[in-house]
């Protein structure tokens, strides 16, 4: 877009679906930041009040308002990157204008540094290198997989390689059968549940959208993957983009949708290129566009990049963001199935959920259901990172024992260390430690331990780590990412961060008396869990809750150090 003037950029985007984000990105890419002139032009072109537009732009971490803007490095200081020197790398790069960013989803090979449109990874300035996402290793237990089944095949990311290894077979057979309802039935039978964190049954969601009469309907692929410690969607999109696209087309066919969006987090610029290439290939091959494969389905997919806001992974916030509104979560009900994109019926599904669909349609619902252990259905990709020998993505049967994954598949803690704790659901499930590490990986078992499996990010902390410090960095993340809509979370995440800060930290506040400290932290946690307007605020206090449960002595010491 370089060299294009305001009018050309506006002309290109203003009549496209969901135009605000791509138009802002067009200006941001051209100028490196969003100038006052750019915002005035966008405001006039899209008829968005200037004050609203200004406020909304400032919501997104990565939209720079002033030079050097995009070209200044952003260094990940997330919980995993801090273990290997994220803070030090940031300091070393300060002279280049570097600023911190929250977990950028490269925890399997830290530390990511984002500059312009490229992410480099490496633990020191010298080691920084632009690299593609690592492929998942062959399944260490030799167990059957669903989404990783073909991902390691040669050329899988291109349409030829994808089709050679069975790709688009499911779509062809579904379209030629002529029964969209059959797709829904198979997905229901598979017992596939949302892999984005909430675990809602996918078949039931699709049926609800199919039953809605209003249209046009949309299918939104949630590729925001902002949860610290989660990087599974990235590897799926990077190495098997057509699986995600095929899953979206199948969803569109099942529910009668004509518009598809992939809402991709800003921190995955290389993925944006891969996805667009795959969409272009699929369009070229007649798999997207009008009358797909002669089956009467019209469906197009648009990639929309976020701009740095974890909350935009929450579906209501995501939809507001797509629509160009301030990205606060929406009050529910109504749900997106009836009132989604532009208030019309919408499927919102996670990348992994959608990528599971083609193999399910291909091999049948029973096949997928039986991949789970015991009563559990299907598989889950776990992103494993931190103090572990072999970090990476592992597809496990649901119900798989955590100790087997940690110690046998991933090699356990680094030499000479033991595993002290893990996080669950990225960090949204808080910590598990001690005997609770014996859990199996399924919601019922993990929830029985006061946590949740969620999107399947697990960070490992060995016995050398100070868990109060880890908890502080997790809570800092929630405070940084709280959207500010509701009181319990907006104030609560801030107060909890202040209470977890070390005594000499400028950000420290709160009682120095242990009982008072605990009561404040518990009261805040209770009110956040019970009354927050979305999952962020409900999940954040699991950090403090589990910290106090597993490490009461360390907490006492922490509070005592503040009393003086």
């Amino acid at each position: 877009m370089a060299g294009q003037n305001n009018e050309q950029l506006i002309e290109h985007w203003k009549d496209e679906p969901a135009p605000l984000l791509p138009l802002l990105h067009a200006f941001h890419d051209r100028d490196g930041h969003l100038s006052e002139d750019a915002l005035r032009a966008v405001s006039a072109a899209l008829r968005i009040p200037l004050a609203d537009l200004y406020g909304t732009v400032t919501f997104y971490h990565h939209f720079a308002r002033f030079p050097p803007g995009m070209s200044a490095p952003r260094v990940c200081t997330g919980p995993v990157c801090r273990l290997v020197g994220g803070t030090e790398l940031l300091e070393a790069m300060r002279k280049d204008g570097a600023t911190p960013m929250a977990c950028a989803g490269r925890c399997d090979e830290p530390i990511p540094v984002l500059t312009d449109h490229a992410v480099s990874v490496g633990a020191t300035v010298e080691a920084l290198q632009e690299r593609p996402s690592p492929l998942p290793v062959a399944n260490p237990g030799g167990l059957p997989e669903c989404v990783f089944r073909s991902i390691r095949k040669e050329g899988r990311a291109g349409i030829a390689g994808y089709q050679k290894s069975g790709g688009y077979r499911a779509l062809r057979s579904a379209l030629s059968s002529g029964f969209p309802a059959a797709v829904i039935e198979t997905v229901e039978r598979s017992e596939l549940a949302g892999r984005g964190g909430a675990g809602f049954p996918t078949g039931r969601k699709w049926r609800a959208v199919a039953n809605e009469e209003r249209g046009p309907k949309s299918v939104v692929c949630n590729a925001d993957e902002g949860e610290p410690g989660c990087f599974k969607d990235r590897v799926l999109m990077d190495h098997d983009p057509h699986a995600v696209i095929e899953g979206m087309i199948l969803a569109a066919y099942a529910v009668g949708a004509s518009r598809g969006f992939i809402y991709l987090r800003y921190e995955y610029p290389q993925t944006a290129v891969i996805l667009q290439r795959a969409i272009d290939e699929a369009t070229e091959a007649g798999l997207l566009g009008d009358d797909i494969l002669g089956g009467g389905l019209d469906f197009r997919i648009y990639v929309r990049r976020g701009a740095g806001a974890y909350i935009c992974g929450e579906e209501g916030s995501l939809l507001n963001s797509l629509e160009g509104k301030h990205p606060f979560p929406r009050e529910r009900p109504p749900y997106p199935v009836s009132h989604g994109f532009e208030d019309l019926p919408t499927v919102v599904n996670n990348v992994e959920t959608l990528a599971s669909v083609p193999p399910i349609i291909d091999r049948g619902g029973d096949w997928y259901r039986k991949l789970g252990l015991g009563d559990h259905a299907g598989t889950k990709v776990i992103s494993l990172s931190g103090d572990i020998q072999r970090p990476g993505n592992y597809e496990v049967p649901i119900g798989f024992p955590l100790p087997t994954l940690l110690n046998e598949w991933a090699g356990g803690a680094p030499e000479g260390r033991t595993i002290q704790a893990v996080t669950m659901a990225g960090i949204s499930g808080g910590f598990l430690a001690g005997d609770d590490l014996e859990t199996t990986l399924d919601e019922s078992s993990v929830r029985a331990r006061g946590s949740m499996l969620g999107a399947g990010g697990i960070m490992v902390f060995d016995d050398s780590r100070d868990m109060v410090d880890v908890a502080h960095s997790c809570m800092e993340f929630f405070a940084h990412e709280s959207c500010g809509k509701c009181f319990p979370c907006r104030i609560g995440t801030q107060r909890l961060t202040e209470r977890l800060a070390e005594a000499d930290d400028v950000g420290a506040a709160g009682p120095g008396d242990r009982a008072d400290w605990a009561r404040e932290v518990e009261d805040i946690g209770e009110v956040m869990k019970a009354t927050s307007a979305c999952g962020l605020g409900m999940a954040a206090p699991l950090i403090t809750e589990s910290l106090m449960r597993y490490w009461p002595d360390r907490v006492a010491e922490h509070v005592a150090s503040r009393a003086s």
Partner: protein
Amino acid sequence: MSERHIEIDGQSVPYEEGETLLEAAGRTDAEIPTLCYDPRLEPFGGCRLCVVEIEGSHNPVASCARKCEDGMVVRTATDALEQHRKTLVEMVCSENRQVDVDPLSGFASQELAVLADRYDARTQRFVGRRSGQSRVDDDDNPFILRDYDQCISCYRCVRVCAEQEGDYAISVKGRGFDTQITVEFDGKLNESACTFCGQCVATCPTGALADRKALRHVDTPGPIEKTRTICPYCGVGCSVDLLTKGDSLVGVQPAMDGPANKGALCIKGQYAYDFVQHGDRLTTPLLRGDDGELHPASWDEALDVAAAGFLKARDEHGRHSIYAIASGRAPHEAAYTTQRFIRAGFWTNHVDNCSRA
């Protein structure tokens, strides 16, 4: 179909399709606290004080946003809910410089203080950083004081400006605890799209947005009295409450139940009242003498001269040569009398008012 009901604290309450739990509860004895709620605006669900328990639902729900469904069983004041509310009010108090503000600040300005009393929340718990920042050089407008240290991010001002006034002048900058109410590019209000209707001031529950004109009278002695009247400036006919202390007019607040305006006003009705007790105001008739200057005169002298002038004009040029314009700043009674005087006195319809918007 039979009438639909929900049960609120054991009482069966009929409701209309689309009504929220909070609206239905308004017809019972339940006293559900709110801070981000303004009945004129779309439900927002920010403060979470209005949460209630619904049988069969795991977490409490925001009653301001949740619609009634037939057969719902709702509890509005369980111990757990009241505990959550107390904690929330304590938390909100902790982000502000002070809880108590002068009632002249604005119509809703006492809401936080009232809840702090109700929940015994002046406990000084949850101390920490305060939220919100004001511009130090923000003194350019005489109407609206922006004291964002007092802001609790309820977004009522933002929403009233957009939904009620249609100005979209203010918005939300940043996120989380760093949220800041602002205008485009953090500018000044008088350089923004603001029309100074004062709606944001009227809905602000903390005095963060305050009526700078009224606050000039903080030290004027006496209790504040409210007198309901109608704004004289135009044909909309907005209801207002004039605030007085003793003989002094100290401010104007919109009447939320005004049939024409439902709490809305424009800058004229809201702020243009200084003339009433302005030092330059005439206290006696003035007559222009042969020297060309104005001289004080008695009412009889002045009326005689005016009457002679009117009659001369009518006799020389006919009754339609007379045209009267009543001032929007005159009382309604004077506007009415003017109209009678011209129509009945001169038999002409040449009469108007200066603000016939």
